[in-house]
C-alpha cells in the first residue's frame, strides 16, 4: 500500500495506449470514473422516469426532487430567463455531485480532484456566460464592469478590480472545487495512515477522526457540487439580467 497521501490522485492508463494523431487520449482511471458517474446518473434517472406514474416510486421521487431542487435553484438565482440553460446546469450539478460522491468510495478515483477537469468545466462556463452576455446585451455587457453609484474619481480603480475579478472567475470556480476535494481526500488518507502507524493501541483516535471526516467529506462533496452549480447560476444571472 502506498503511504504517500498524494498517491491516490495518480492517473494511470487502463488498457492500451490510444493515440489520436500525436495526442494521447488513452483510457485512464479518471476516464473510467467519469464514465461510471455519467452511467450512474443516466441509470438512476432512466429508472426514475421509466414508469412516470402519478404516484411516484422511490426512484421517481428522487428524480423529481432533484429536478425541482435544481429548477428552484436556477429560478431563485437567475430568474425565469435562465430556463433554456436548465438542462446544462442540471447535468453539471449531477455530474459534479456524482463524481464527488463516487470519490468517497474507498480506492475510488475522484475526478473532480484534478484541476484540469474543474478548470475545463469552469472555463467552458466562463466562455459560455460571456458569449451569452454579449449576445443579449451587445457591448452594453461591458457595463458589468462599471457599477452604478460609484464616484467618478474611484471609477478607473473599480473598473480594473471588476475586470480582474471577472477574469478570475474560472480560476476561483475551478480551484474551489479542486482544492476542496483534494484537501479532503488527502486529509482522510493522512488520518488513515495514522491509524495504521499507531496500531491497535493508539489508532483509535485517528480512526474516530477518520469516521468524522468521512461524514464531513460527504457533506463537502454535496456542498461543493451545489456551490459549483449555484455560482454558475449567478454568473448566468449577470449575463442575462445586467444588474449593475
Amino acid at each position, binding site marked *: 500500500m502506498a503511504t504517500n497521501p498524494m*498517491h491516490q490522485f495518480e492517473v494511470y492508463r487502463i488498457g492500451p495506449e490510444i493515440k489520436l494523431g500525436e495526442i494521447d487520449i488513452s483510457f485512464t482511471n479518471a476516464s473510467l470514473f467519469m*464514465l461510471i458517474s455519467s452511467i450512474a446518473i443516466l441509470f438512476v434517472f432512466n429508472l426514475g*422516469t421509466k414508469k412516470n406514474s402519478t404516484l411516484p416510486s422511490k426512484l421517481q421521487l428522487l428524480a423529481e426532487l432533484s429536478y425541482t431542487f435544481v429548477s428552484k435553484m436556477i429560478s431563485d438565482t437567475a430568474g425565469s430567463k435562465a430556463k433554456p440553460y436548465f438542462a446544462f446546469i442540471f447535468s453539471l450539478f449531477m455530474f459534479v455531485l456524482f463524481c464527488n460522491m463516487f470519490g468517497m468510495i*474507498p480506492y475510488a478515483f475522484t475526478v473532480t480532484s484534478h484541476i484540469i477537469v474543474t478548470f475545463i468545466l469552469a472555463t467552458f462556463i466562463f466562455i459560455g456566460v460571456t458569449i451569452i452576455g454579449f449576445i443579449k446585451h451587445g457591448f452594453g455587457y461591458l457595463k458589468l464592469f462599471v457599477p452604478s453609484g460609484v464616484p467618478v474619481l474611484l471609477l478607473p480603480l473599480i473598473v480594473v478590480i471588476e475586470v480582474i475579478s471577472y477574469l478570475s472567475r474560472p480560476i476561483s470556480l475551478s480551484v474551489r472545487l479542486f482544492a476542496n476535494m483534494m484537501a479532503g481526500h488527502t486529509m482522510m488518507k493522512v488520518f488513515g495512515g495514522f491509524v495504521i502507524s499507531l496500531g491497535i493501541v493508539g489508532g483509535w483516535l485517528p480512526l474516530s477522526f477518520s469516521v468524522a471526516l468521512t461524514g464531513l467529506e460527504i457533506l463537502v462533496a454535496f456542498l461543493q457540487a451545489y456551490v459549483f452549480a449555484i455560482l454558475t447560476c449567478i454568473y448566468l444571472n449577470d449575463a442575462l439580467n445586467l444588474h449593475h
Partner: protein
Amino acid sequence: MIKKKIFQLIFLSFLFLEEAFASESGGMPQLNPEFWISQIFWLVLTFGTLYLVLSKLILPKISANLEKRKSQILENIETAEKSREESEEKIKEYNKIVQDSKIEAKNYFNQTREKMLKDINQKKENLDKEINEEIKKAEIEIEDLKNKAPEKINKIAIEISTDVIRQLTSIEVNNSSISAIVNDLSKDKDKYYGI
C-alpha cells in the same frame, strides 16, 4: 448480489492496477500534464453525452410528468369544489323542503283545530237548541196539565161529594146541582190551591 460482485470486481482491479502502475513521483499528480489531454477528451465525451441524453430524453419526461400531475391536481381540486357547491345547493334545497313541510304541517294543524272547534260549537248549539225545545215542550205539557187539573179536581170533587152525600143521607142528589156548587167554589181556587 450482482451489483456487489461488480463493485468488488472494480475495486479489486484497482488494487492490482495500482500495484502495476505505482510510480512514486513527488509533488501533486494533478500538475503532471501527461494525461491532461486525455482527461479533457474524456470529460468532453462523457459530460457531453450526459448532457445530450439528459436534455433530450430524460428531463422532458420528468417535466412532462410534473406538469401532468400539477394539472391533474388542479382538475381534482376543481371537481371537489364543484361537488362541494352542488352539495351545498342540495342542503339548501333540503332545508327549504323541511321548512316548507313544517309550515304545511302547522297550517294543517291550525285548520284541523279550527274545524274541530267549529264542529264542537255547532254540536253544542244544536244540543242547546234541542234541550231548549225539550224544556219548552215539557213546560207546555206542565202548563197543560196545570190548566186541566182544576177541571179534574172539580169532577173528582163532584163524584166524592155525591158519594159522601149518598152515604150519609142515602139521598140521590142531582149531579148538576153539586157540580154547580163545586164550580162555584173552584172559581175562588187561588184561595184553596195556594197557586
